[in-house]
């Protein structure tokens, strides 16, 4: 899975900046996506491309249980969020609906991947290749069950063995 990186070098990106409360009334996902990250980066909607990734620090997605957060990112074209750690409800929501991959990375990847870098994520090898910089980083493997739910396309499509 290849794409370019939009980097926010900060911890605690919360659900209120990912999708501000006033937009939680919007039922249409495409419209919701036009407001993604608006609380932090008003240019996000104009710069994001289909297949991009977000890179950020610790505790990504802290705050509210709004599933609108991964939905707004997903419908903006974001395929994965790479972060040092995730708030648990965001992580769970991302997996439940298979909206995007929440990928836990280490400090090495966080520091070395820059805004705009093209990277290739290989979930089967638990590897992230930085095509722009010709580097390779490890990602934290998904637990078995999370991997299966993601592969199935979400909680409701997953059938236990």
């Amino acid at each position, binding site marked *: 899975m290849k794409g370019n990186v939009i980097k926010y070098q900060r911890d605690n990106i919360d659900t209120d*900046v990912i999708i501000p409360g006033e937009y939680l009334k919007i039922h249409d996902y495409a419209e919701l996506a036009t407001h993604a990250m608006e*609380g932090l980066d008003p240019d996000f909607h104009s710069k994001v491309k289909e297949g991009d990734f977000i890179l950020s620090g610790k*505790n990504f997605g802290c*705050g509210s*249980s709004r599933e609108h957060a991964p939905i707004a990112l997903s419908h903006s074209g974001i395929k994965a969020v790479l972060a040092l750690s995730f708030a648990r*409800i965001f992580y769970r929501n991302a997996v439940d609906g298979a909206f995007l991959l929440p990928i836990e990375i280490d400090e090495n990847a966080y520091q070395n991947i820059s805004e705009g870098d093209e990277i290739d994520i290989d979930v089967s090898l638990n590897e992230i290749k930085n095509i722009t910089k010709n580097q390779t980083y490890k990602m934290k493997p998904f637990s078995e069950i999370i991997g299966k739910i993601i592969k199935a396309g979400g*909680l409701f499509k997953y059938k*236990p063995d």
Partner: protein
Amino acid sequence: MGKTLFEKIWDSHIVVEKENIPSLIYIDRHLVHEVTSPQAFDGLRMNNRAVRRPDLTIATMDHNVPTNDRSLPILDQTSAIQIQTLEKNCKDFGIKLFDMTSPNQGIVHVIGPQLGITLPGSTIVCGDSHTSTHGAFGALAFGIGTSDVEHVLASQTIWLEKPKSFEIKVDGKRKNPHAVTAKDIVLSIIKNIGTAGGTGTVVEYSGEGITDLSMEQRMTICNMSIEAGARAGLVSPDEKTFDYLRNRQYTPKNYENLVEYWKEHLKTDPDAKFDKTFTLHIDNIAPQVSWGTNPGMTCDVTESIPSPEDYSKNDQNQKKAAAKALEYMDLKQGTPITEINIDRVFIGSCTNARLEDLVEASKVIKGQKVSEKVRAMVVPGSQMVKKQAEEMGIDKIFTNANFEWREAGCSMCLGMNPDILSPGERCASTSNRNFEGRQGTGGRTHLVSPVMAAAAAIEGHFVDVRNLDLN
């Protein structure tokens, strides 16, 4: 080895448990509101599924209801649609709904305990992160997203990896419990352990500092567990818990038998081990005021705004975050907290809008007027809280002081209804999150107790409320 309270509740709710996969957990109560449920009901319809236990599912509208005159039409069309959608969904699926005209309407985490729906030892979920509030009654209560809402509606169960256990012990006695409140205790905890300090855990709050608290104060503590990243927070039930829930509208008929069972079973065994522990001594803690853009960025009212270097000596990211927060908040390092002028005051939210909160705040303002530079509002947590306060004459104390006295809802806690800050406005707020834009784009939030918010409304800036006569 003994078990913790959390483990006991967990074990008694397992439907399926296998190695290496999450457990399937039974849910006793499912609380539903208008914002995180529409897609879940759509999903049920698409798959021809019914609600498995409508009798264990309770709905209300709180997040985007207007807090002005209820007889007026809702001007915001998207809000109106969301509210009508919940009405239709509850009707179609046979769910009890406390709508905008119901005397039981209110913030979902205020009405659950008030109606006796929240019970010790039970599992409670809701599509809202502050579901942790119900843990004050010794329930395992946590927030979920909309996919999980659909899963619970359809099956009354949820898949969950067993969280770790975290004991937060609150030791000692506050010297001035009217001025140093439960809000100050929980803000102190988050300041110490950080906004991710509880990630992946269920917190059990214990110690004299917790057992001393009333049920409403314990709710304030458990409410903000999520702000430390914890999935849930709970307190072992005691006589205060049992008294609170006795004779409520939905208290079970066999209540006294339940109480006997709870007394015996709902406590952590003396030899139980927690995965993690933290102790806070509260003998000398001061009233707290948040200065930054997450609840961990908080200091004593007697302190000054820290410099980014003082805030974090070693972590570059933290330093940068503090610098960004000061910029957003338009604050300068070294400014005494008591010299920060405010424009707005919001007394409300699932954290601090219960009767006791309003009573305590009213003591501060009695016979005084809100500063001319400040617009202040009280939004009771539920219509029942509002009615009780009005019967006590509390509303008059607020309105005589030029506070707005409004109808129940989440209101300015999250800026979904017309109650929002204008860009640049600074608010002393009794809510739970000071994230950028939380109370309206460009709004600046300081998290404080109801007593501090009330005092700030009168003075126009924060004050050390320990110097006020609050008895």
